[in-house]
């Protein structure tokens, strides 16, 4: 099976070391740093290159400090960002209100 490549970037100075991302990672790719940031917190770091870009860590992060990257599974190429930006992926809003919105 082709490996799905993902990666994360942590905004270290805003991280409070709550560890919620660490336990949410199905790949066990995360840990808290040995060192501390300016606020005195151990911050989240990727410790193994096994990230799949599943977004779990980012979803549970209370401080919105984790950016998740992913490579397209099939082609290995970039996808239009707009297509990927929708975090929930499964939102289907069954309202006929498309026109009314954003007014």
């Amino acid at each position: 099976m082709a490996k799905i490549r993902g990666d994360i970037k942590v905004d270290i100075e805003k991280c409070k070391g709550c560890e919620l991302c660490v336990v949410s990672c199905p790949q066990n790719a995360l840990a808290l740093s040995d060192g501390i940031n300016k606020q005195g917190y151990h911050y989240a770091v990727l410790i193994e290159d096994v990230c799949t870009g599943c977004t779990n860590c980012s979803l549970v992060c209370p401080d919105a400090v984790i950016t998740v990257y992913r490579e397209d599974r099939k082609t290995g190429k970039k996808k239009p960002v707009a297509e990927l930006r929708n975090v929930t992926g499964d939102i289907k809003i069954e309202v006929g209100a498309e026109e009314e919105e954003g007014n």
Partner: protein
Amino acid sequence: MQEIEHHYEDMDIVCERPTALLDKRMHYCPGCGHGVAHRIIMEAVEELGIQENTIGVAPVGCSVFAYHYMNVDMQEAAHGRATAVATGIKRCRPDKYVFTYQGDGDLAAIGTGETIHTVNRGENVLIVFINNAIYGMTGGQMAPTTLLEQKTSTTPYGREAPFMGNPLKITELLAQLPGAFYVTRQAVNTPLHVRRAKKAIVNGFKWQALNKGTCFVEIVSNCPTNWGMKPVESNKWLEEHMLPFYPLGDMKVPSKEELENG
């Protein structure tokens, strides 16, 4: 610790801080669910493209400074009065998306009257209710939603029904009111729950445009600081103690016809 080689350039961003959430360090305690709730609300606003038309109300509670983080027009409200403030705004600016963001003390104790009447009138606003079973801001006193036997600074031996009453399931109560259009209970303790909570919030905003009543999203959340737990432990406690009493899921969903005959 092993150094990981990053390859951001040849990948796409699939998840990042919404721009509607200002790029600031939030004052919440480490691991507090308020942060997740803030983020998903702002993601919803951003994705729906309604940032220019959204007005938020944050009353007293830990989230009183929500206006420091949410990049939309906002009003701070007196303790318990967020839904009255939201009513005032919505009645005068009916074409805007108005939401409140309230704690359990705010919404289900001091503000119970306003909450019930706002939903009963079916004000076209979104109410986001953060249930962390405790008073966070004032240092961990009993909330209306505090569980039986739960220890807080004012129930040092645990909450006992004969003396302190029972935990209030206000969401179930509100779902009975005809003015409620959409009532649901969600949580933010796992990735799956966060996804669902966000979907609920997106619906809550979106359905405001139908002018058919109040959308109410309860979010079961944690308060690691006043529960006296580490964040990871608090989410476990939430799963084991809160969710059995406050089961997740929709309590009132609009029918297909209601959604179509907008």
